[in-house]
């Protein structure tokens, strides 16, 4: 099978590579672009841990071919924060409202929330729950995730400013 040349803009940076046509977008992001914040949970299009934005829309990157993203823009969780420790209001709200426990679903949850809040405001709780219905969380029971999204909405209504957060360096291995 012949390889394909693709060019995908990931978080504003153009990544070019020669790939096997069957390479999934999530593998392009993790292995070619080296960004491991996007997770593979189920690998069967059910959990949403792999959620990224493709030309501004939240999609499951385990069910998109990298080839389908050729020439398009991808935003991952790494693309939300500014630099090392300036968090986007959605990220900060998840920290403050305990929107995560183990964190496995979190990057996907945040990407879906980010897409949602950029599309619509004044969300009812029902709309929020419907919007995250493609993202599964095994830890939180969703209550604190809904709280986080509501908090993020309030903060984004006030200002879109990034918030400085001291992120402790990871210790050990």
């Amino acid at each position, binding site marked *: 099978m012949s390889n394909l040349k693709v060019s995908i803009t990931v978080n504003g940076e153009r990544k070019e590579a020669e790939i096997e*046509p069957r390479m999934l977008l999530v593998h392009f992001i993790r292995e070619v672009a080296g960004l491991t914040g996007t997770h593979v949970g189920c690998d*069967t*299009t059910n959990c*949403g841990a792999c959620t990224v934005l493709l030309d501004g829309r939240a*999609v499951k990157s385990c*069910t998109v071919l990298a080839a389908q993203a050729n020439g398009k823009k991808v935003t991952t969780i790494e693309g939300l924060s500014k630099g090392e420790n300036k968090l986007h209001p959605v990220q900060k709200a998840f920290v403050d409202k305990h929107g995560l426990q183990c964190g496995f679903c979190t990057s996907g949850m945040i990407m879906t929330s980010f897409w949602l809040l950029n599309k619509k405001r004044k969300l009812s709780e029902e709309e929020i729950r*419907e919007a995250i219905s493609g993202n599964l969380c095994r830890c939180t029971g969703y209550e604190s995730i809904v709280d986080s999204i509501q908090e993020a909405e309030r903060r984004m209504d006030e200002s879109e400013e990034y918030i400085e957060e001291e992120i402790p360096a990871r210790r050990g291995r």
Partner: protein
Amino acid sequence: MMPPAFEYMAPTDVDEAIDLLNRYGDDAKILAGGQSLLPLLKSRITSIPYLISLSEVKDISYITDGKNSLKIGAMTLDADLEYSPTVRKNFPILSDALGQLADPLVRNMGTVGGNLSHGDPSNDLPSVMLALDATFKIRGKSGEREVHSRDFYMDTFVTALEHGEILTEISVPYWPAASGGAYVKFRKGTWNFSVAGVAVQLQLDNEIVKKAGIAITSMGPTALKASEAENYLKGKKLTAENVRHAAELVVAASQPSSDSYGSVEYKKEILRRISVQAIKKAQTRAEVK
């Protein structure tokens, strides 16, 4: 999970895609949003040596108001149709179905044409198109043809699409004033697909049904049109008794099989109940307009 290896081609117009389909014969298949095809490939239920992607084809993703019908390009995303103001206003039956189809992330990638071409009896859009009397524009090597939705669904994963043909456009006729529709879907647990779904579109004239379109999801080898129920309602008032009888005729049109979703009897009971709900909801919407 890696799909089995394939060659990937992304032509920029429909005719080129048709040429490629014809060149590679049975070894080739169209890739639209991939939300049905990629899971099948990843789990290795199928393998396809040549994938012809429509993602780079221009002018095949649109929603336009025609004179007598709404025209939907086959590569229109489910999400774009869901949020379209003209769909919300004129076809609440479609908004009902799209809002419950898979999840918002799948709808951001899946296409209307893919949902209709796949021929999965559990897909939600086929029965809605049957109820609305939609027609499909199909293009192949020898030109273009129109197929009515009622002649499109033949068997599970088998449609009127011949090999080498592409569905390019869906045409949904505008129903006259005093029309309304609803789609009711019954799911079990968190699984997206329905145990049963029913689409009902009604046109009323002073409380009398002038025309009815009714079709069902997940209740047989394909989406099924409930023609007897449609004919029965014509010329009648929607009294409780008539609605109950129509629902009975919808159940009579179903061909469910017993599986992990439930027994035949259970599924028929579900369908009976959601048919009554859908007819009443369609009636309310037809009266409001």
